[in-house]
């Protein structure tokens, strides 16, 4: 009766599938696809001129889709055969291993140097600079959320709330009271951290998925309040005319007191982009540095211990309440800083920028980055945002492709793109451990 659940997948694939088997599987897939797509793709509905619904059929599209599924199914099965059983251990020779580890150690510094040089290398390519700023914003958000999810093991689905708090804090303080970016930046971070603590309180007694839904609900509450509290936030119209950051009080404008005029060089709007680039780079590196330092403090150790086993933590006398609260507050702080930067870069914010989609994207970056690996998060942000940009031309298919990529990446590398990381505490020598060994805590 039935296949055992614990049987490894290899047991099922070891019986080499013949051509008949592959064909049968493809036929079944095609039939399932036919039923699935029959009404959704075969028939198109639209509201007619008088408001009543009309429909027309698109059987050619349906046929193409079913044929694609049939062909795709055969292709996947052939690839699987060629690749061999999923669980087979691939032996890597020691020389390759040491070369890989050397490359692994060099990746981070090389990437950092390259990032510093981006404005120099691509000075004339505005698009690349803008994209780099976007990627760095997500790197910072990923590193911030990493504190909560990757280190403390608390599942946060509403991280965008803190991003929104930071952005609106800066936008409202700057437009209403005329405060400068550099005064508002720490304020935005502190306010976001305060909200993190506020959310942290109900969260303390919850575990796992209850925590997930509460944070998700919190994110939605913040967004709904931003939409509906029109007198304060401007509602769906958002806040416009958010001032740009200045360099020690010197604006980067073509005016007479602007930076270009003071230095005696010709004004170019690229100056401001480069300036913004270095601001977000500094903020991201600050996030990274603080996280690395915190991991070496008793607090950071407590976070990681909490992720591994909450009961053991309590038995060892760790105050789980303050540990969770600090994790939430720290994560929220960085989210708030990133939000303030987002507001000053855009010059305009509206609740539309702070949907659940953003939270999911940042969470995907953290998980794909390998849950706790700083380099992994940076690489994942680059992959996700860069990949997302590649499909900009596809317009309405972009989110579809993004969703599919998320599913496929999870199936392909459930442990993230970077599957190893160095432990912060070790007995005799530091040895990279597989992230398979890092259990996700109960939250």
């Amino acid at each position, binding site marked *: 009766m039935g296949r055992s659940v614990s049987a490894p997948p290899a047991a099922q694939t070891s019986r080499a599938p013949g051509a008949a088997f592959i064909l049968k599987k493809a036929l079944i897939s095609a039939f399932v696809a036919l039923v699935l797509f029959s009404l959704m793709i075969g028939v198109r509905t639209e509201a007619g001129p008088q408001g009543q619904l009309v429909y027309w059929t698109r059987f050619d599209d349906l046929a193409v889709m079913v044929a694609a599924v049939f062909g795709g199914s055969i292709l996947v099965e052939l690839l699987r055969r060629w690749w061999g059983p999923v669980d087979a251990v691939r032996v890597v020779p020691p020389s390759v291993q040491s070369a890989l580890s050397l490359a692994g150690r060099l990746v981070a510094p090389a990437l950092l140097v390259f990032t510093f040089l981006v404005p120099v290398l691509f000075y004339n390519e505005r698009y690349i600079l803008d994209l780099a700023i976007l990627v760095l914003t997500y790197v910072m958000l990923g590193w911030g959320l990493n504190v909560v999810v990757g280190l403390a093991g608390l599942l946060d689905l509403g991280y965008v709330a803190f991003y929104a708090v930071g952005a609106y804090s800066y936008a409202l303080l700057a437009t209403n009271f005329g405060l400068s970016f550099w005064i508002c930046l720490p304020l935005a971070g502190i306010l976001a951290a305060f909200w993190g603590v506020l959310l942290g309180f109900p969260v303390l*007694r919850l575990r796992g998925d*209850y925590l997930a839904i509460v944070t998700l609900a919190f994110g939605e509450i913040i967004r709904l309040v931003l939409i509906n509290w029109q007198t304060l936030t401007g509602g769906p119209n958002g806040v416009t005319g958010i001032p740009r950051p200045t360099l020690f009080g010197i604006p980067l404008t073509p005016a007479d007191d602007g930076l270009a005029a003071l230095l005696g060089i010709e004004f170019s709007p690229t100056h401001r982009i480069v300036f913004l680039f270095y601001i977000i780079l500094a903020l991201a590196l600050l996030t990274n540095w603080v996280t690395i330092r915190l991991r070496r403090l008793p607090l950071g150790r407590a976070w990681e211990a909490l992720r591994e086993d909450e009961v053991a933590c309590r038995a060892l006398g760790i105050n789980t309440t303050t540990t969770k609260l600090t994790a939430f507050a720290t994560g929220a702080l960085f989210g708030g800083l990133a939000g303030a930067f987002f507001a000053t870069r855009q010059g305009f914010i509206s609740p539309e920028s702070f949907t659940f989609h953003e939270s999911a994207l940042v969470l*995907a970056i953290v998980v794909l980055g390998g849950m706790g690996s700083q380099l992994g998060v940076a690489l994942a942000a680059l992959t996700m945002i860069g990949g997302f940009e590649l499909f900009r031309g596809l317009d309405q298919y972009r989110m579809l492709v993004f969703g*599919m990529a998320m599913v496929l990446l999870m199936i392909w590398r459930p442990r993230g793109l970077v599957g190893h990381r160095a432990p912060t505490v070790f007995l005799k020598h530091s040895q990279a451990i597989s992230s398979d060994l890092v259990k996700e805590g109960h939250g």
Partner: protein
Amino acid sequence: MDYFAQQLINGLVLGSIYGLIAIGYTMVYGIVGMINFAHGDIFMIGGFIALITFLILVSFGLTAIPLILLVVLLVSMAITALYGWTVERIAYRPLRHSFRLAPMLSAIGMSFVLTNYSQVAQGARVKPVPPIITGGYTLHEGSEGFVVQLSNIQIIVVVTTIVLLALFTWLVSSTRLGRDMRACEQDQTMASLLGVDVDRTISMTFVIGAALAAVAGMMYLLYYGLVDFFMGFVAGIKAFTAAVLGGIGSLPGAMLGGLLIGLIETLWSAYFSVEYKDVAAFSILIVVLIFLPTGLLGRPEVEKV
């Protein structure tokens, strides 16, 4: 008082729809232990399929409303159930023994896929349908001319929900499949050793959950007279909130939570402000969880070391 009674009726009807979706969440959570983020979108797909089937039947000249409703119900349940099965097969089964966050992210990805698939396939605009079932009963005529009404569509929603719940309770408590499902919920390895086909049972759980969501989608279409590609997200979050409120993993809890969320939302809109109805629902969820961390009917999780 009359006004309150009317809102109570409206709230219960809305709550029934939420409850039907919430059952899908709670069932999957009970067995696989994951939040099926794509479930709200399955509900949306159910609504779309009901709409398209309805259009086709009407254009073929069918006029008998009960027959149309029955056919639409069966077709949308069948096709949506296949969607549920496919989603599980593609996105969740390969990750079943992976770590806890992996299937959840895969589910979020699947939710994006389904939302945008509907948008691409059927367009982004809201699809309105004329009221299919009209008429109703006047329950009470108040002194100030306010009448408490119970429309036929409201009766249909509530009766369908009650019938489905009875059927579903019977299925879980007295059939072979229900026993397998309860066994898998307790211990998958042990269940498989005793001859329960775990893969099949989990697939069936998704199929049943999707079929119930399809009914909810059809009821939504009949009650509100519109579907759009984005309705799955909000309805999904509300239904999930309902499942958590009732205690996730508990079937009566899901229904109770659904009714409560429906009532809170309707009463809040009636007496306070429509804009903040969702804020009210979510805030009450947070408050309830502070005092009852496992929901209203949830069993406290015993932690073994």
